[in-house]
């Protein structure tokens, strides 16, 4: 099972990243635990300078922008293999 973390304090963009991730997971039938990280000390552990951030299996794959469904799909599938 994958562990997916959405880094962000609840701004609109962070919610959109979470929605995209959940949608792709559902469409692809991937089993994953999605965790929202909203506290700054925890967010800063991934050494990012802008939110929203997306972490898959402890690897930061995106920060500071909203990735497309296609990109998230590729990241999730390659993390699964």
């Amino acid at each position, binding site marked *: 099972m994958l562990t997916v973390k959405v880094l962000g304090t609840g701004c609109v963009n962070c919610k959109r990243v979470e929605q995209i991730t959940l949608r792709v997971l559902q469409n692809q039938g991937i089993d994953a635990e999605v965790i929202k990280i909203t506290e*700054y*000390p925890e*967010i*800063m*552990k*991934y050494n990012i*300078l802008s939110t929203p951030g997306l972490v898959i299996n402890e690897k930061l794959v995106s*920060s*500071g*922008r909203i990735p497309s469904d296609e990109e998230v799909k590729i990241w999730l599938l390659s993390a699964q293999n």
Partner: protein
Amino acid sequence: MIKTDQPFFNFKRWSIPLSVSASAIWIVAYNYIQPLANWLTYDIIGLGEKSQLGESLAFFLYDVPKVLLLLTGMIFLISLLRTFFSPERTRALLGGKREGLGNVLAALLGIVTPFCSCSAVPLFIGFVRSGIPLGVTFSFLIAAPTINEVAIVLLFGLFGWKVAGIYVVSGLSIAIISGLIIGKLNLESEVEGFVWQIETAGETRMETLTWSDRVERSWLGVKEIVGKVWIYVVIGIAVGAGIHGYVPEDALAGIMGNKAWWSVPLAILIGLPLYSNAAGVIPIVSTLMEKGASLGTVLAFMMSVVGLSLPEIVILRRVLKPRLIAIFIGVVAFAIVLTGYLFNWIML
């Protein structure tokens, strides 16, 4: 290699040729707005050339497509430029710079680095923890929202390049001066303690982008920004068009002109709580100026709308103690007042 199903239309593959043809259409359209607006108002609708309604409508029909076209084109170019910058790269460029030069560089990078005020806290922590001086960090944090890309485009479209240039230069000055003052005050102890205890692990992620990635992201930027502000622009121009046709010239010279000393601080106070409406405020402000409001007062108003925003102050409170927040607001407001008076005095 992962197989992905091809979407119906692969935008990425066509993004560059599509952008080239879009530019050609853009240039043609831009040159036909004025005759089209006049033709619609005076020949099709049949309003008189000297009538107030006719003047307002022609103004509206000309300004809306012009400003929206300018917004689309210029936001695309600005977004493209921004794909070459990232907060990570900016941090690397600012590392090891002394105060002074560092403040100037930070303010300049504030214009081109993609930045959303919701990221102010991670950026602040990441900057100060990597050893960038507090004052230099503030120069960046002030310049980034104050020199707003939508504001640049609207000022250029409605006032011309001189006023747009003055806006950028005064935004830079405000950011540099405020950062230098905050740096001199040695306020590191006024940063919340947890900032100094945070552990930042892992290497910094830097992306490598192809040109079609950059073009695709720029179109996304246009969609995002223009999609958000167009309605304010239309409403703003509609209000402006009404004032244009009906309010006599110089009607505002008494209250917003450069002889009224209190107009600058008042403009800042009114501007402070207005945040998301920056895009709608500028078209109105352009008309106010036409009716006698002075440039310095108008600039001060805009700077406080975009630069001193309550949401950003609330966000920054997470990492700054109340005293530093108060100093931050005070110093920036002071710098805006100075700039406002400076331009009122220059234009006298």
